[in-house]
């Protein structure tokens, strides 16, 4: 077992996959706590479906860099969903459901009608459940994700106290002259970016599990915001690492394996909370 792992670790593509996978896990879990607490758990799911739809359009258009279309569309939808949440005419959850199901259907329809690929269902499946492209990362892409992750963590630490205030009590934050709308907007935009970037790893159907599982597990173990945030990052990173390792050793799909590990961890945390008493 150990020998196999050391052997695999000698391949640079394995190291790259581990680095990028762990970084994505770290970034997605940072905002996960806020999203879960603000009852926005489904926003990740909705946006991932939007990203899928946009990706289908980009594929049909034969765009060289699909990110150029996927990223702006997803960010715009993130803003729209957030506006919908504030506007009481259509409830927030209904807007998310509409946008997410709609873009899923249109994406698949467009692929079906216009696609020239011989292996259509294979293409769709890998977009939905993650492809193996995490194993073919270039050095450039690895550096890009390292830099983006550092920026993300730095921004989170700088705004941590404000994110807490905005999450806990929007009314009070407004009264204290915090620009609540700006922070909500930034949170949705960052989530949209993370989703588009990590779609390659876990696929669009599983991405929201990446965002919410670590937060939910951490909330079972700890009762203060700081402890929950730190714990969810650690859980997310460890689960991603274990998941990628298992998938390389066992040849299982990367995304589903990580989510399965996340889900098992949640079960464990739930049991600890239920039977073992809660840490402070």
């Amino acid at each position, binding site marked *: 077992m150990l020998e196999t792992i050391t052997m695999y670790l000698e391949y640079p593509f394995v190291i790259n996959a581990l680095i990028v996978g762990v970084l994505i896990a770290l970034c997605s879990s940072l905002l996960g706590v806020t999203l879960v607490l603000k009852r926005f758990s489904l926003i990740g799911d909705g946006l991932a479906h939007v990203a899928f739809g946009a990706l289908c359009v980009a594929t049909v258009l034969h765009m060289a860099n699909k990110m150029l279309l996927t990223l702006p569309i997803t960010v715009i939808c993130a803003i729209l969903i957030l506006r919908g949440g504030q506007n009481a005419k259509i409830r927030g959850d209904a807007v998310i459901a509409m946008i997410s199901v709609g873009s899923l259907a249109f994406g698949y329809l467009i692929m079906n009608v216009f696609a020239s690929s011989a292996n259509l269902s294979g293409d769709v499946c890998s977009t939905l459940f993650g492809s193996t492209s995490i194993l073919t990362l270039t050095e450039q892409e690895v550096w890009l994700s390292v830099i983006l992750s550092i920026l993300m963590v730095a921004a989170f630490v700088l705004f941590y106290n404000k994110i807490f205030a905005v999450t806990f009590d929007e009314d009070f934050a*407004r009264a*204290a002259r915090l620009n609540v709308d700006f922070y909500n907007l930034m949170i949705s935009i960052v989530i949209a970016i993370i989703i588009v970037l990590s779609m390659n790893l876990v696929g669009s159907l599983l991405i929201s599990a990446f965002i919410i599982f670590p937060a939910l597990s951490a909330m079972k173990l700890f009762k203060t*915001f700081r402890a929950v945030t730190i714990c969810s990052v650690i859980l997310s990173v460890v689960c991603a690492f274990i998941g990628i390792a298992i998938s390389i050793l066992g040849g299982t799909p990367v995304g589903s394996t990580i989510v399965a590990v996340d889900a098992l961890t949640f079960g464990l945390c739930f049991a600890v909370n239920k039977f073992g008493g809660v840490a402070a």
Partner: protein
Amino acid sequence: MTLITCDNVALGYGSRVVVDGLNFTVDEGDYLCIIGENGAGKSTLVKTLLGLQKPLRGKILLNGLNAGDIGYLSQQTAIQKDFPASVNEIVLSGCLARKKFLPFYSAQDKEIAATNMERLGVQSLADRSFAELSGGQQQRVLLARALCAAKKILLLDEPVAALDPEATADMYKIISQLNQDGITIIMISHDVNEAIGRAKHVLRLGKKIFYGTSEDYHA
């Protein structure tokens, strides 16, 4: 000294006027109780006093205060029921109002938070989880947070809405005590009798607006 002057103000959304011809003043050390039925414009008035909304007509003058200097005790939301946050984290967040661009809390902020927790008798709960506290304790914590933001005036939005009778009496006692210590209080309330008994002035919103001393209101 007069802190807030409300001069012939109309409140509402867009073209819908909820309250019209509103005149009142809040002096330093005052205890103003605002009552009125649902839809009479209480929460619109709160938003306007906090500077989150502009009056349709008329003027609200703040004397020696910025809108952010008003300590606000907001109504509790469903989100807070299972929110993982310690008492300390919540009270400290009240200090955000006085920091413009600094990202972290200073030693002075922590001292202000500690002083206010002590003032409201929640310092022993500092590391406890907010969600596990009783309703009365939670309101004390949120009041401590409001005090961190406030220099001299508190705006309390239905402070006893979800409390049992004992905690309600306790809360009113705390508010009176703060008022005696020199903090100006504006309180929105449903609980007409009890609330007015302690207030110095009463503002009733509705078809017939009343503003005057609480003695006059009973007369």
